[in-house]
């Protein structure tokens, strides 16, 4: 079974990208002001994540390793992600304008997310098989979605709280994230890989 389930749990809970690897914070703080945007981002993000890491895996194994181009992986992976996002944007606009209207704006944001690039890089570094890469990508996507939704539900309440002026907005969001990260520490040691 190639420990697919363990990889999934590890990527989504134990090594949650936001809370223990501290990646993707830019988008994390950007879209969690409202629940609606957080949910939209989660769906788009998970889909793009799985597909682009599958693409990267194929190109890495089929083209870059045989040609000894692995030192170019940063350039090529960012190209794949940017190209795929652009293609998805165009296709979605033609095929389902309704969906595009709802999720299109998140697509453009995704290219600036570090997680989307980190996952192919980790997959390449750890030499995962195709299924392992997929399950790692799916776990990361779900983990990110979980983080977004938890944070959005807290921040909606935070709007009503009486926060000192200099701490309003991002500073207090950071402190709240710290507290959630503390809670996520509880997952460590759940599974040993």
């Amino acid at each position, binding site marked *: 079974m190639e420990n697919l389930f363990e990889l999934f749990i590890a990527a989504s809970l134990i090594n949650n990208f936001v*809370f*223990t*690897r*501290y*990646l*993707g*914070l*830019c*988008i994390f*703080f*950007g879209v969690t*002001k409202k629940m609606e945007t957080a949910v939209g981002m989660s769906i788009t993000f998970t889909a793009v994540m799985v597909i682009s890491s599958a693409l990267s895996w194929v190109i890495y194994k089929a083209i870059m390793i045989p040609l000894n181009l692995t*030192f*170019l992986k*940063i*350039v090529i992976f*960012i*190209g794949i992600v*940017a190209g795929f996002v652009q293609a998805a944007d165009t296709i979605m606009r033609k095929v389902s304008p309704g969906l595009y209207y709802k999720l299109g704006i998140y697509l453009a*944001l995704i290219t*600036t*997310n*570090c997680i*989307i*690039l*980190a996952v192919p*890089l*980790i997959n390449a*570094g750890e030499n995962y098989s195709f299924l392992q890469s997929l399950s790692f990508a799916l776990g990361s996507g779900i983990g990110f979605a979980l983080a977004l939704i938890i944070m959005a539900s807290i921040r909606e309440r935070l709007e009503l709280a009486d926060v*000192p*002026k*200099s*701490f*309003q*907005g*991002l*500073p*207090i*969001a*950071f*402190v709240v*994230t*710290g*507290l959630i*990260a*503390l809670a996520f*520490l509880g997952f460590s040691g759940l599974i040993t890989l």
Partner: protein
Amino acid sequence: MSSTSNYWGLIKNGIFAENPIFRVALSLCPAVAVSSGLKNGFLMGVAVLFVQTMVNVTVSIIRRFIHPKVRIPSYMFVIATWVTVTDLMMAAFARDVYRQMGLYIQLIVAYAIILSRAELFASKNKVAPSFFDGLGMGIGFFFALIVISFFRELLGKGSLWGIPIVDFKPMLIMILPTGGFFAVGILMGLFNWIDIRFFGGGGASGGGH
């Protein structure tokens, strides 16, 4: 020559008024990720300083040859090239540190601050101002990382640059992820407070990504 003071103004702008981390709040990931020790923070700061300056210069040189429609992808490739250079250099000359934070070095490519300076400044200005803008932003970033990692290492391990300084029971929480978020949040609040109190600013950190 008035341009000298202009360049100085550009550098100061990057350090305080538009400090990438505390004020503009771009590229927050490395601020939390690699700031658990002064040494890591220092190297990360140097890497970003180098990449930001070189990207600004390169983009400024080629700004007339790039069609506006493909400019963002072209900038991405310029950035990715310079990040690869940094990545390979770090792997060659700083092996121990690279093993810990190699992934974060590679991810400089996705840091919004670098793309945003290339797009907002370097694509519209000549080479020399772009160089100083990149330098200022890089120094501002460097400064922020040093401040954060200074507090985190001092409180979390009781040491600086790996050398024990004070003798007390360290607060383990400060070197855990949690501590990183706390440190950035509190310092950001402090910067806002200074801005409101002494400079009469609005005190709002920029949002977004």
